């Protein structure tokens, strides 16, 4: 019970944009009027700061929020994003923290202490520095001889950097192996690597987890709510279209995926990825802590006709998970050229006005259960 109450407090706001909280208006008191008006005028729904996102693009775009407070904020205000090392809410850091704490208190059987790791890390740093000095000396030597063109220097520098990096890896692995020869070697090793990566030189836990946003979430947060430090047209043009101006299949897919996402979000659903069910989205009425998702959504182009087995598989998967399969058909009602032009001119809302959704529920039906 208390958990639900605290959840109700924690997840009070369904969106990262909060409504204005105005003071109470007392009719007979003119001061209260003035104060109210003042609050209204100065008040603003906008976030104090824009949330920073890092966009990693190696063929596939990954959008990450790495600031701890921002991660928490986006999760708590509408369940946006997924912790990369957690089931959904980014809780990895807290797990690590409590694990190390309990180890320090001696409650868990100590496999390795924080100090040990810290010691290794320091050793490692010293050795690494030594190596780096060697490299620098080598370079200096070459330069003095005057045998280097700037291009060559860059090349060698790159080579040496790569070597150093490799040294760092090997060094770490070797050290840990050497120092810990005992019965349960493998387990030790695992923990050592894991923890060595987790603890920094000052003995603090490093945050390895970031909150990853789906492209549609990123669009929603930047375009509809304007809480990210990326603009929607930049995001679409630079990251999703690779600056090309063709109406590609990929662009079309992104646009219809977003149309569906926005449609459900804006009617109050908490929309999350349905990858585990092989579907595009699942819909929660409020959010994961409150109840199971009731719907699985597949987003389809309105002209789409899949092989029958596709529908049959999806209906079975959903049926097995007690969810209703919703086929969300998105229809393009403006020409491709027109939409491209809207995007180019930064009229993102007009681009999305060019889509309309229609919905169909697909359910297996058993005659014997529907006879009487």
């Amino acid at each position: 019970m208390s958990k639900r109450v605290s959840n109700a407090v924690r997840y009070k706001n369904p969106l990262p944009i909060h409504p204005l909280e105005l003071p109470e208006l007392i009719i007979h008191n003119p001061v209260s009027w003035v104060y109210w008006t003042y609050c209204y005028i100065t008040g603003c729904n906008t976030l104090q700061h824009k949330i920073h996102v890092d966009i990693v693009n190696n063929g596939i775009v990954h959008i990450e929020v790495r600031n701890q407070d921002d991660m928490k904020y986006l999760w708590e205000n509408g369940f946006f994003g997924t912790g990369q090392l957690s089931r959904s809410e980014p809780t990895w850091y807290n797990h690590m923290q409590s694990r190390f704490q309990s180890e320090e208190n001696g409650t868990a059987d100590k496999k390795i202490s924080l100090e040990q790791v810290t010691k290794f890390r320091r050793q490692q740093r010293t050795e690494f520095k030594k190596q780096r000095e060697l490299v620098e000396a080598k370079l200096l030597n070459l330069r003095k001889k005057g045998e280097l063109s700037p291009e060559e220097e860059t090349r060698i520098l790159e080579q040496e950097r790569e070597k150093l990096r490799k040294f760092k890896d090997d060094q770490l692995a070797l050290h840990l192996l050497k120092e810990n020869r005992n019965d349960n070697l493998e387990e030790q090793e695992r923990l050592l690597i894991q923890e060595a990566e987790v603890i920094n030189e000052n003995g603090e836990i490093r945050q390895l987890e970031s909150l990853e946003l789906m492209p549609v979430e990123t669009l929603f947060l930047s375009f509809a709510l304007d809480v990210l430090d990326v603009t929607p047209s930049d995001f679409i043009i630079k990251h999703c279209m690779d600056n090309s101006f063709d109406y590609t299949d990929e662009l079309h897919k992104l646009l219809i995926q977003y149309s569906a996402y926005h449609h459900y979000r804006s009617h109050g659903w908490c929309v999350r990825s349905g990858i585990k069910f092989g579907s595009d989205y699942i819909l929660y009425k409020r959010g994961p802590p409150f109840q199971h998702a009731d719907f699985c959504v597949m987003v389809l182009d309105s002209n789409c006709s899949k092989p029958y087995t596709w529908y049959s598989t999806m209906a079975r998967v959903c049926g097995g998970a007690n969810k209703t399969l919703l086929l969300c058909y998105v229809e393009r009602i403006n020409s491709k050229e027109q939409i491209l032009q809207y995007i180019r001119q930064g009229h993102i809302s007009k681009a999305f006005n060019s889509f309309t959704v229609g919905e169909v529920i697909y359910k297996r039906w058993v005659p014997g259960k529907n006879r009487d």
Partner: protein
Amino acid sequence: MSTATNQDTDLNLDEDEVIQDWSDISKIQNDNPILSIPKRGEKDYEPDGTDIQELLLYRAKKAMFDTLENSVRGSTSKSQVKGYYIPDKHIAMVPYAKGNFVQSMGETDKDGTLWLHFFEFLYLAERGTITPFWKAYGNNVELPLSIEDLYSYFKTQKEMDNFSIYAHLKRLGFIVRSSDQYIITKNNTSFYPPMNFKSYTIGSMRNIINRISSTFTYTGISLFNGIIFSQWHFYLRRYRSSPDIYESLNKLISYHKIPHSITDLRHEYSSLKRSTSNSTPTSLHITFNIWKPNPTFKKKYPELPDYQVVTYNKNMTNQSFPTFNELEALFRSLDYKFNFIEHSSNTDFWNKNTYNNGVLREDILNDLTNNARNKNKQPKIVTKKPTENKNKKPGKELPPHIQQLKRLKNGYRSFLLAIMDNGIVSFAKISEADFGSENVWYVPPPKGTIGRPNKNWRKTNKSKDNHRKEKEQSEIK
């Protein structure tokens, strides 16, 4: 091979995993009408080379083939009903029809001769209810036909598939009739009132309005989108509640408007009737109307069907699953007991909203009753039945958020897709849905009540549309 079990949700207990233990067949022969569905049997994981497994398999096969061999089709000469195939028309006639099937199958002419569609004829022949003959040269030559003969008269795969689906549903006790073919006269049963002159003029007025509004099949594209979806948005507007924010966000993506009520349905119908360009070509159309088993069924004045069936062969390379436009066309062509309408479980309601050949069904039933009374006979058809409210306790409405979830999960108009896969028949229910006219956003409780959130978070979100309904419901309370 396929069956109806009530184990739908449990994937492990699916149709094909219900072991076909043919030794159980004795339990379900015709004289024992209560079907005992064989238990989920103990099948093995894989062949293990043991004798006992061999023996079990041998027995299973033997039981199956013994049953097939001993199950002979036909009837005694006393109960024999002769049916005659008419090749030119690909139908059959039964001059002296008797038996339960007459009530719901075929068409009976003034002389009492029963005319059957080919699929009905074959179905009855296959169960041994009628004896099929080829009749030539008047009554002089009667050639008895075999099942193999009859199958060779199928013209297309579609026809053969339709037959299998028909037989599948019939065996389960449904009343099934063709929705698009007729032999003698087309008995038309419709939810929609006929278009007479008067309603035509009214209709055409309405039509103009509809045409204007149908330009916007998609609802409310706001002119203010430009502001809402700009970086100035939250500087220019002040939102005092989350619902307000949602309201402005949900103007972006338009959605298809679909009928939710009787009025909506009739509007759509009358506007579609007049616009000719509206029939989207589709390979699929409604093939069967089906009714749940009903002893008072009248084939001349049927009620609206409980379901409508579209048949589909998943393996035919020239058939493909309908696209959204084709699905829409199918939804628009539906004419059945729209079970999403309120009171849809009420017989009287449907008698007031069904037209048999253009005449209100209620009037037909009254006439029949009166005629019967005049002749001092028992009324044949009971007009006033106690309202069927099996599952609903009157006066106990479900809370709004549950009602909403039901609407969302069941959708609106629906048809059954019967899928044929090489002799295996299965079904899917395909429904129109409308998430665009429902809002499920969370309304935070007013300040100070956070400690007791339960009461308030039931009262979800209201779009203006829903507001009225929910108000009514709270008044009922």
